[in-house]
């Protein structure tokens, strides 16, 4: 059976991980390759590297990093953060990234999704959506790392993006992110049940129970978390052991 995926997310700045503590056996918690290898050994199904470096010249560091990750890690990984050009994506994929995630640039120019999908196939195009539930009960798309509100409903944008060729949706709830109170089950379920492509739930993971809920009650195909893994609050191996009786999981 196809299993639910557990995905640690690593924030990268200037080629180094931003968060992270010292795991056992890791000499340098700031080294993305070491951290990635550790997650892979713990049983992570995939990795996401989110580059928060702003400047263009630092982007070259990212390509070098992708090369290093791909030559050391034997599980799939996605690279995201400020991607706006087909040429950038070509470089990342050629150097060993399996997928790229696009966010603000795709919203501002949806043809980017179409162009990426045509050039490389929809299987490597992940659309990242930052979403927030407003007082009227609806979920809206936010851009620029959550700083800019739009008047577009998240499900409308997700539908459009999938029609254009997005092969997967990485959905981050701003209401839940950082709270450790659990994933946003309602919007995750609406997207996962309504879209023909996989949905990765992100934001709010605090306990192992939260992962069970997002898989069982919101039909998420994958769940992503950062700090609880980085600070070793939940070990991926323990999480998978916990989930195994309830959901199909790779062990």
């Amino acid at each position, binding site marked *: *059976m*196809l*299993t*639910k*995926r557990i995905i640690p997310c690593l924030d990268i700045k200037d080629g180094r991980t931003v968060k992270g503590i010292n795991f056992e056996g890791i000499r340098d918690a700031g080294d993305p390759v070491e951290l990635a*290898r550790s997650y*892979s*050994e*713990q*049983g992570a*199904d995939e990795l996401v590297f989110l580059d928060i470096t702003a400047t263009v010249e630092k982007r070259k560091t990212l390509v070098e990093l992708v090369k290093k990750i*791909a*030559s*050391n*890690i*034997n*599980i*799939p990984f996605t690279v995201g953060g400020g991607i706006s050009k087909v040429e950038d994506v070509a470089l990342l*994929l*050629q*150097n*060993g990234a*399996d997928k790229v995630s696009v966010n603000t640039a795709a919203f501002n120019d949806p043809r980017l999704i179409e162009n990426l999908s045509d050039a*490389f*196939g*929809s*299987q*490597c195009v992940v659309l990242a959506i930052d979403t927030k539930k407003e007082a009227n009960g*609806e979920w809206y798309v936010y851009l620029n790392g959550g700083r800019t509100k739009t008047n577009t*409903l998240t*499900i*409308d944008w*997700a*539908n459009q993006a999938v029609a254009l060729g997005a*092969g*997967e949706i990485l959905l981050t709830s701003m209401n839940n992110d950082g709270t450790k109170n659990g994933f946003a*089950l309602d919007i995750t*379920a*609406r*997207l*996962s*049940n*309504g*879209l*023909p*492509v*996989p949905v990765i739930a992100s934001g709010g993971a605090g306990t192992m129970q939260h992962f069970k809920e997002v*898989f*069982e*009650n*919101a*039909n998420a*195909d*994958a769940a992503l978390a950062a700090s609880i893994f980085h600070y070793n609050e939940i070990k991926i*191996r323990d999480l998978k052991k916990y989930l195994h009786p*309830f*959901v*199909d999981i*790779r*062990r």
Partner: protein
Amino acid sequence: MSHSLHNTALPVSSSEGLAGRIAIVKYNAGNVQSVQYALQRLGVDSFVTDDEEEIKAADKVIFPGVGHAAPAMQYLRERALDKLIVSLQQPVLGICLGLQLMCKHSEEGDTKCLGIFDEEVKLFMPPVGTAGLAVSGVPVGTEGQTGSTQTGAALLVGTAGQTRSTRTNPAFKVPQIGWNSIYNFKSVLFNGLMEAEFVYAVHSYYAALGKETVATTNYIQPYSAALQKNNFYAVQFHPEKSGLVGETILKNFISIS
């Protein structure tokens, strides 16, 4: 299954002796770099080439691929790589799109393929409206699931209360992305592996079961996870991204004498 979690394999002891010269076919589809890195981790050198003589002279040939069948076949034909590949005598390993192109025909772009294998390549078609939604609390993706509380919507709607029409089972997304288990091994590729090991796959099209099937996977229905005919081997999943299980499969391939 337990060793899926360990992600480093021992290097192949004598890479030149066991593996020989490994050519990776260069064409307009695919992430050849990842395959080369995976071989490197096994201590095996390889070279990426579309040169006929170099490919012919290699001890083993890997035919990777990610992308669309039609442009990939067109590219191969324009460079006469199609005729070359089918004529190869040494062990050949197709990966992902490589496997599909080695089949007879693909529904993707209604494409005539290399015809090494007799199988048809078809698009995954999720069953329509048979699964329960989240409210049932039943783990999705479970084989034999019968819960039917509500059908999904043809398209998501922005406002609640709009008409919902029947759509496909939300448990089966296309493309299939992720780790799935493989069974019924009938090839040296799977030496040393246990049934139901997990491998990583990303694909919307699949090769149907047939006489050349040497491993199966279930997604919507059983399909060929691997095919083999004489010196031609192929896997639908990505061994280069499948942890230690994938490394074992690659090691088995490069160890074929």
